[in-house]
């Protein structure tokens, strides 16, 4: 008994191992881009060249690493280091890097890879290394048809991005937009689709009809947009794979501002009759139409929350155009914007935590974000004319279009696609063959 008591006494006296430690709280850090080295991928001897669109791609390993580098540079979260400073050859680096060499050039992460191209296959493997800890973080190999080599580079970018940032990437995605050519007074508008980095542009319509507001389905094969049918603007559906298009619903008036529900089974849009527009949904399988709002004001630009339970939209029922949120059945409506100016084109983030919008104040256009309850409004960018934000699938980047000022003859006018991330500092133009407007970002092509 005595021994037991002594034991208890000394247990409390000595068995407190943490007490010897000094604790220091680190509550701040920096948001500088992470220095990363992307070594050119080593091409296995005996590999064939890739022929694509009449061009022969000679050094596929270098091309893949270049795409990854551009993706990372554009993300603003990474700082790809200059390849001239690399000491180690790609083949040796892929087998086992000399971390001291990479530490010297201040790299914190290193991407190496190996490519083997045969007649009908390209096999690409890559490794991501933690230079400071001197260990491998992830290693994967992909096998596909040689024409898909750009996608492989994007998928590798996504994997590295996810491993280093903790959130999903957005590089293996596509963007649909309205390609514009001609004078300001006589624009030809075609539907166009491209990779998120601006490559592989394809035109989906001929340009003889006006097209507006294309939106991707979360399933990717379908696109909904606005075009003219019997001189009336109507919502269309287009299957990208087959090229088949159809008018949505049998409405007597004009329908516009379409968007898919998160499960891809419904389309939500505005339907206008006698100068009043309200929000409707249509089930794509049963074709059943449901009216969601019923008000004499103009209700438009609806967008679902990612869980499908809520809808945000803009309405002028208060006299000025403001953003409202309601349940998906139209109940429990709440106004969420009370700031100065007009608010429009709300889009719910795929993460669900934010709503992006366009704001017009003092004849200037802003793209901003706020929480779904209207708090925490943050304006990310300001310009002469810009609108229609669309979220990247991971909810970190917004794509929108911006028009420049022109004179009375329309000279100096241009419309370009731009992207900006949530920090508001990483704003970049996306190079397109023609002018572009109304972009919409697809979800990840491979999950």
């Amino acid at each position, binding site marked *: 008994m005595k021994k037991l008591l002594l034991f208890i006494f*000394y247990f409390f006296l000595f068995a407190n*191992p943490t007490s010897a430690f000094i604790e220091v709280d*680190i509550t701040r*850090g920096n948001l500088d881009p992470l220095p990363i080295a992307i070594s050119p991928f080593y091409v296995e001897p005996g590999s064939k060249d890739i022929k694509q669109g009449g061009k022969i791609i000679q050094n596929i390993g270098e091309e893949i690493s270049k795409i990854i580098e551009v993706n990372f540079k554009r993300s603003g979260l990474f700082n790809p280091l200059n390849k001239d400073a690399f000491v180690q050859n790609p083949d040796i680096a892929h087998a086992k890097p000399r971390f001291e060499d990479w530490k010297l050039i201040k790299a914190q992460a290193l991407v190496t890879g190996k490519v083997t191209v045969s007649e009908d296959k390209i096999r690409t493997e890559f490794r991501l290394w933690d230079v400071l800890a001197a260990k491998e973080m992830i290693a994967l190999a992909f096998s596909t048809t040689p024409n898909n080599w750009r996608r492989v580079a994007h998928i590798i970018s996504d994997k590295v991005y996810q491993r280093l940032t*903790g*959130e999903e990437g957005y590089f293996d995605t596509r963007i649909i937009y309205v390609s514009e050519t001609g004078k300001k007074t006589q624009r030809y508008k075609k539907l166009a689709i491209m990779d998120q980095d601006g490559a592989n542009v394809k035109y989906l319509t001929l340009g003889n009809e006006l097209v507006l507001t294309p939106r991707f389905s979360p399933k990717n094969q379908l696109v909904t947009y606005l075009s003219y049918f019997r001189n009336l603007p109507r919502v269309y559906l287009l299957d990208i794979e087959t090229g088949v298009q159809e008018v949505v619903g049998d409405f007597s008036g004009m329908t516009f501002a379409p968007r898919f529900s998160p499960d891809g089974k419904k389309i939500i849009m505005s339907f206008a009759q006698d100068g009043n527009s309200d929000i409707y949904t249509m089930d794509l399988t049963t074709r059943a139409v449901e009216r969601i709002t019923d008000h004499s004001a103009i209700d438009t630009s609806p967008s679902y929350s990612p869980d499908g339970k809520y809808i945000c939209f803009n309405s002028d029922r208060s006299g000025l155009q403001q953003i409202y949120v309601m349940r998906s059945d139209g109940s429990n409506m709440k106004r969420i914007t009370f700031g100065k100016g007009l608010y429009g084109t709300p889009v719910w983030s795929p993460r669900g935590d934010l709503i992006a919008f366009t704001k017009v104040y003092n004849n200037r256009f802003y793209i901003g974000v706020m929480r779904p309850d209207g708090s925490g409004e943050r304006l990310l960018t300001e310009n002469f004319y810009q609108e229609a934000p669309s979220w990247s699938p991971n909810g970190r980047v917004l794509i929108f279009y911006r028009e420049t000022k022109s004179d009375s003859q329309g000279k100096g006018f241009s419309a370009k696609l731009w992207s900006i991330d949530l920090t508001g500092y990483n704003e970049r133009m996306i190079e397109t063959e023609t002018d572009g407007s109304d972009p919409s970002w697809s979800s990840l092509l491979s999950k």
Partner: protein
Amino acid sequence: MTRSIFLSLVFHTAMIVLTALSLPLMMKTPIDLPPIISVELIEISDITNIPFAPKARKTLEKIKKEEERVVSEQAPPAKIKKEKPDRIPLPEDFNKEKKKLVKKKQNPEEIKEQVRQVSEFEKKELFNPNQIAALIDKSKKESADTLKKNQKLTQSNVKTSFVSGLTLSEEDALKAQIFGCWSLPLGLPYQENLLVRIKLRLQPDGTILKSEILDHARMNKPGQGFYRVLAESALRAVRICQPLRVPPAGYDRWKDLQLNFNANEMLKG
């Protein structure tokens, strides 16, 4: 019979009386205690970074010199350790070692150490029930030692000898250094708990001898992938930063350090 009725009556009355007395007490509103305000104790270092005025400097230097002189008078002559000459172990020594080993193996009554995964840091400090007697002796010895030491201490020594952590300015220097090295991963879900605790064992020059992430198990839990990214970023920060800006003296004070990296504040703000 009558006795039991009597007893029952007595106890029942007692109950009624007690209830009658305590009920009004229950009706009373409880006393409003003022809310407890937690007080954070901050240690401020004796010397600030602000330069002294020239006059004050001179007087201070004078005092310092005098103090140094006094200390040098009192200081005992330094003991020089006698180095043992290299010698070849005798066969007797081997036998001794063998005996020790055998003893360890053949003691079935010995209580096995707690079977649990512990950090490298904790291993040495775990309480070993087999050594109670030794610990008692040691504690006696230690208390005697501290008593002796305290008796010898001068007033100025007392001030610094009880400082167990880093002083405010020392902590600030370390924090500022790590703030600059820590690149926050931006994709973290800010609604989650974003605290990573890292234990470090430092060398006297501030370089890292070993590092360990506490809550290591959380890294492999489903849905906690972000925690791994966060923990790795914190480890990277420590590695880039080394050697850490630690005070030049008092190695024993800061050789074991725990850094709590918290991304919540930064991402929420």
